[in-house]
């Protein structure tokens, strides 16, 4: 039972043994599918694997089935590369709203660490995170810290730093000083190191790096990088000399017949690829999805789906959602967040969330944000207040909240969803929710001040959206009369991170 470092990553990849996390939000679902698929092919229980891979399986069912699968002898001696990619990332809005993903990722990480430690897995850690080190230590997995280099970069970037220093493109003292300033912000150190390398890439190699950053897994190298030809007339996306330059710079790793961009490098270039317009990232994703559509391998189908989502091709995304729909939900979240800039995005987001709860009626998040985006897809509150639509939205908000309560077994599980439901009723539905508001707020007092604010803010905002001026002002005045203007104002301004106003 050992945790090994980056030097062994390429060996493991070359051997084609084990799985690798990528650090994307779907990792927990993707890894579950891949592990189940592998174990099924080795003779483990097919029925359990089907649960893990079924598009309509709930997460708890998948996790339970995976736990049983990992007890089988076929699960012995595996390799998991970059378990640290499953470490939670800090996002304020995940506090209440999107915590389901965070929780699911944590549950999978815990399961893998526990099962792996019992089954003699090798954990290869190209970019260790402190929290995961603690988990591994706690589970009795031997952790080889390998010592932090004075320049502080992730192990997977050490080769890259060596080249920078050898070529005198950077002074070691500068890197050391930067690492001292960055402290424990590993991501900042890694970004800095990659950026320093990027500065001297040729324009062609840089374009190749931007395109490669859109691909997640290791790519077969045999005249092509996976599905991308690098020789001959069709090498317009990535050519051989650009690839050689990236390999020489240390921005891409090679293991026998495969190449892969390290996660820290991919993170940097992906950020640029998607945003600066240097390449048409959507079009690239669309092309990758199209090429991957020719394969039937589980890994390729997952990637085809991923690229369809990243291309924002909604129909293709649903068509390729063979194993799960988490990626599509992330797309809907993105559209919803853009709704404040362009109202049409609310409607598109609502359409996706609507399809998601039809696929999985237990998906509280989909119900909640179908209601949220539908209510905002029309600028005119009178349209939303029309009876048929109004009652559907009201019902959806309630369903979302009750699903959360049922999942947690606790009435106070999600003040935000509760607040939105009450806010909609007190606003567009013109109900007198004052008594219910006061009583519920009292209940949340036992949780925390923060929970009270998460509840109060959407209620007050909802009341303010009422199409009836008289109702709006009467109800609002009663709230102010009960709690005081200052407190109400504080709730209304409570953390813009509260998620209200954004479906994030």
């Amino acid at each position, binding site marked *: 039972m050992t945790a090994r470092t980056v030097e062994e990553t390429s060996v493991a990849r070359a051997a084609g043994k084990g799985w690798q996390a990528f650090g994307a939000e779907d990792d927990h679902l993707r890894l579950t599918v891949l592990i189940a698929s592998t174990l099924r092919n080795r003779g483990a229980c097919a029925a359990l694997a089907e649960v893990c891979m079924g598009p309509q399986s709930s997460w708890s069912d998948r996790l339970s089935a995976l736990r049983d699968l990992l007890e089988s002898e076929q699960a012995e001696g595996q390799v998991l590369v970059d378990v640290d990619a499953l470490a939670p990332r800090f996002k304020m809005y995940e506090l209440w709203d999107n915590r389901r993903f965070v929780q699911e990722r944590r549950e999978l990480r815990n399961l893998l660490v526990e099962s792996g430690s019992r089954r003699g897995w090798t954990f290869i850690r190209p970019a260790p995170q402190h929290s995961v080190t603690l988990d591994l230590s706690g589970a009795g997995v031997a952790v080889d810290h390998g010592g932090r280099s004075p320049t502080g970069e992730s192990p997977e970037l050490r080769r890259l730093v060596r080249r920078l220093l050898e070529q005198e493109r950077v002074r070691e003292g500068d890197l050391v000083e930067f690492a001292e300033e960055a402290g424990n912000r590993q991501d900042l150190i890694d970004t800095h190191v990659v950026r320093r390398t990027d500065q001297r890439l040729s324009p062609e190699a*840089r374009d190749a790096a931007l395109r490669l950053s859109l691909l997640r897994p290791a790519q077969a190298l045999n005249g092509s990088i996976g599905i991308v030809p690098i020789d001959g007339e069709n090498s317009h996306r990535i050519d051989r000399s650009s690839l050689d330059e990236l390999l020489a710079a240390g921005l891409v790793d090679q293991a026998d017949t495969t190449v892969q961009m390290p996660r820290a490098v991919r993170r940097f270039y992906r950020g640029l690829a998607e*945003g600066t317009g240097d390449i048409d990232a959507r079009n690239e994703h669309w092309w990758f999805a199209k090429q991957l559509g020719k394969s039937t391998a589980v890994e390729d189908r997952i990637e085809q789906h991923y690229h369809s989502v990243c291309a924002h091709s909604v129909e293709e995304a649903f068509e390729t959602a063979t194993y799960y729909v988490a990626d599509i939900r992330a797309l809907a979240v993105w559209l919803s967040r853009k709704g404040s800039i362009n109202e049409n995005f609310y409607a598109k987001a609502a359409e996706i969330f609507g399809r998601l709860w039809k696929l999985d009626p237990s998906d509280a998040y989909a119900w909640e944000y179908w209601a949220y985006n539908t209510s905002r897809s029309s600028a005119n509150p009178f349209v939303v207040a029309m009876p048929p639509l109004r009652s559907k939205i009201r019902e959806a908000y309630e369903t979302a909240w009750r699903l959360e309560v049922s999942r947690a077994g606790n009435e106070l599980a999600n003040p935000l969803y509760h607040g939105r439901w009450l806010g909609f009723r007190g606003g567009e539905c013109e109900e007198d929710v004052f008594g219910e508001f006061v009583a519920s707020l009292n209940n949340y007092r036992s949780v925390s001040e923060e929970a009270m604010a998460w509840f109060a803010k959407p209620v007050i905002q909802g009341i303010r959206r009422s199409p009836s001026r008289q109702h709006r002002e009467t109800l609002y005045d009663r709230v102010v009369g009960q709690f005081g203007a200052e407190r109400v104002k504080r709730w209304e301004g409570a953390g813009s991170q509260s998620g209200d106003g954004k479906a994030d």
Partner: protein
Amino acid sequence: MALPDGLWLVMDACTTGYGQANLTKALLDHLEVPRLDLLVLSHPDADHVLGMADLIGDPERPVRRLWRYPGMVRDLVAKVTNKTQAPSLEPLGNALKRIDDVVRSAGEDFDVDEVRTRARWDVGDRDYEVVALAPTSYDAFRMERQYETLVNLDDPNAGWEASERFVRALAGERPWSDHPNTVSLGVSIAWGDVRLVLSGDIEDEAKHRKAGWKGVLRALQGCGGEPDRTYLLEGAALVKVAHHGSTEAQSSDAWKQHTASGKVPIAAIAPYSNSHLPTDTVLQDLRARAAALLLTAADAGGAGTRANANGWANATASPRKLAATAPVAAIAFNQSGPLSVDLGGPAQLYV
């Protein structure tokens, strides 16, 4: 700057307007400068950058080495802003992109260093030194951290996206305060007894002891086992005043170092008319610290009038007038003997 052995150094270059005359290039052409041995790109503000792309990409005058500011936040801002039709940053974005393209295409043709305090230009066995004063590692890090306020790297399907703060800035709802001066280079140049301090736009407004001029002084004082290098600021014959003479960039501590050895320098300022720089405060402060004041454009924003109002008198005897009408001043330093000053157009020397 023509160094004593024939090497050439240029720090920053502007134009007279967007897409208009590049006076630095015109001067270099006039002097038939064959190459630029060190080109210093101090920081990504338009008044320092717009003329640089012409110099870097000039095939007739190769660049041997480029010193540039650290980070790329402003480059990204300018580039993205360009796409969103915000006109003020568009020329800057274009210039930065041109510079980036040239540097990337140059391959090994010339060296590029992202420098920090104490970085030294390796000039081999020569009797002078050129050393970077700023930015400190702390300021470089401060600027790099802004990258994460600009982009969201962790959203798997959105990928890059502008932060809310940045979107609001683009919409004109709030200022975008990325403070490019944070990473401004400063340079100290010395041969024999002659030292010049080119302060770029180093600021002194930040309270943190490791930021701006405070950080420069701290770093030069040799903390952490490094030798004391505060001599890089001392005994200056000429100080290019930081940030066009803004109050926020005027460091009393730095000026104490400049005059510590008893020498009193000439203070040189390139006025910035849009912001009415130099300020009265700085002009008054310099009156007590500098032997003379050189304004490259006394007519810019009433700078000359303000200099007079703050006790500076026009020098009448020593400076010679150049035939040029451009705002240009040429100063020749001699190891032994007086310096000579030649002024063109609206440039003016005060005593």
